[in-house]
């Protein structure tokens, strides 16, 4: 039981990163893989700030800004230097590895015996449930803010940018600016996942972001399947589906591990799982046709 609760917890912590991938992949149609770097950056910033007795809630805006700057950089490289989005993301991600390492000063920092975001409320008096409640609360706030943003006039312009760039240009929307802001928002959400996970696992590791973008992609693909299947039009529910997709993804990994698979094989299993999600609908479609 504990095992699945842990998976649920990680799923919720990683869901803001998945929301970030949802924004880049589904709203802007940009394949952004700055994620691996900005996720670690969020955790690194957290590991640097919290030992100073800084209130963990005050660390939130700093984490978001750090991730936002990383995303904006990718956006600037992509739009202003006209470099392919995928390559722009790889460049910033690679650069971030060195930046993260020099900020961290060593390959990992433990976060033990310090106040984290999970040390404040204990309504259940049981660590697992208290943590789950806190993470759920925060993610709910984030989804609400994001859903509101996407319904505003600015949000409509954001959604249109990824949908029809000829139309948005003709309607006075600066597509480049929109993409830069979108990538900034997406990567600040990703950094926020790093912030949550670092505090949940009580350490920051320089390698914790490797391959995390695959987890986000997998979660978004699962959520798109749910969204298409149920025909969800409401943007609030769509965002909720992304969180559910992320939790399902972690659950499947948890089951895989419980079957006794070597943890070193986890990335391979993750990759194969994502491959299955991507290819299964095509195979099923062919069988039906």
């Amino acid at each position, binding site marked *: 039981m504990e095992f699945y609760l842990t998976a649920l917890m990680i799923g919720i912590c990683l869901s803001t990163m998945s929301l970030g991938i949802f924004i880049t992949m589904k709203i802007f149609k940009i394949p952004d893989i700055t994620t691996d770097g900005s996720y670690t950056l969020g955790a690194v910033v957290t590991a640097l700030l919290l030992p100073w007795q800084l209130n963990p809630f005050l660390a939130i805006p700093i984490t978001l800004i750090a991730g936002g700057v990383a995303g904006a950089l990718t956006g600037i490289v992509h739009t202003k230097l006209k470099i392919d989005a995928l390559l722009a993301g790889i460049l910033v991600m690679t650069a971030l590895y060195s930046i993260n390492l020099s900020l961290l000063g060593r390959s990992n920092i433990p976060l033990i015996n310090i106040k984290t975001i999970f040390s404040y409320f204990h309504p259940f008096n049981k660590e697992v449930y208290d943590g789950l409640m806190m993470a759920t609360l925060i993610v709910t706030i984030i989804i609400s803010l994001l859903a509101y943003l996407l319904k*505003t*006039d600015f949000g409509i312009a954001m959604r249109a940018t990824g949908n029809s760039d000829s*139309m948005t240009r003709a*309607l*006075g929307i600066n*597509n480049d600016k929109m993409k830069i802001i979108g990538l900034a928002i997406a990567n600040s959400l990703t950094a926020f996942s790093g912030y949550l996970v670092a505090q949940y696992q009580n350490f920051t590791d320089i390698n914790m972001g490797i391959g995390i973008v695959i987890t986000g992609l997998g979660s978004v693909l699962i959520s798109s399947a749910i969204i298409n299947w149920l025909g969800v039009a409401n943007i609030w529910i769509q965002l909720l589906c992304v969180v559910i997709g992320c939790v399902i993804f972690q659950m499947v990994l948890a089951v895989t591990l419980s079957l006794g698979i070597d943890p070193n094989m986890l990335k391979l299993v993750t990759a194969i799982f994502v491959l299955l999600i991507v290819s299964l609908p095509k195979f099923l479609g062919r069988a039906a046709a």
Partner: protein
Amino acid sequence: MIALSNINKVFNKDKDNEVVAIKSLSLTINEGEYLTIVGSNGSGKSTLLNIISGAEMPTNGTITIEGTDVTKMPEYKRSKWIARVFQNPLSGTAPDLSIIDNFRLAALRTQSRGLTIGVNASFKKKVKDRIATLGMGLENKTEQPIGTLSGGQRQALTLLMGVMDETKILLLDEPTAALDPRSADIIMKTADVLIKEHNLTAILITHNLKYAHQYGNRLIQMSEGVITKSLDSQQKLALPLTDLFAWFI
């Protein structure tokens, strides 16, 4: 209203596949004029329209709109004067967004898009009333993604979207090329009504000589990047349709 002076546009300059699309072209379009441009494929009509809208930058020459030099101004900034209808019905709307969201963006073409929710009851009513004037029965489908509509319906909505915000210039780049004859007639009539109603300066590119003859108060023909024939409103009125057909023989 729009003044083009000595515009040249060369694609792939100094390469084997160099194309001179516009050759030292000067053209002044006055306020309230409805200019129709005809010409065979490759004559430079669309390039000319793209240079006015800012989708293409001229190789040299200057463009002014209402006295403002816009030669280097990007397309999205020129949109404060210009509304456009594209040849491809898919280009003028965002398919995954609802009709109402598309109209919301169109209503903010010249304004900033803030962090407030602008799609409220009064806005929805305003859009429904506008759409009802088309008589296509689309006023009850405003929450539907615009991509689920037919090309003709989307083109008609794009036209209406063009006048949701303050507009001075309407550019119509073969708006009926992808449509069936009935939808095409509706689009051309709607455009004519809107141009008169809002006193727009308009430019229409068309291969349909019947429309070129019927609509607009000035007519030019282009060929290989230059204006080969130019008729003012009186000459255009006096021109028999058969003579217009003869231009292309």
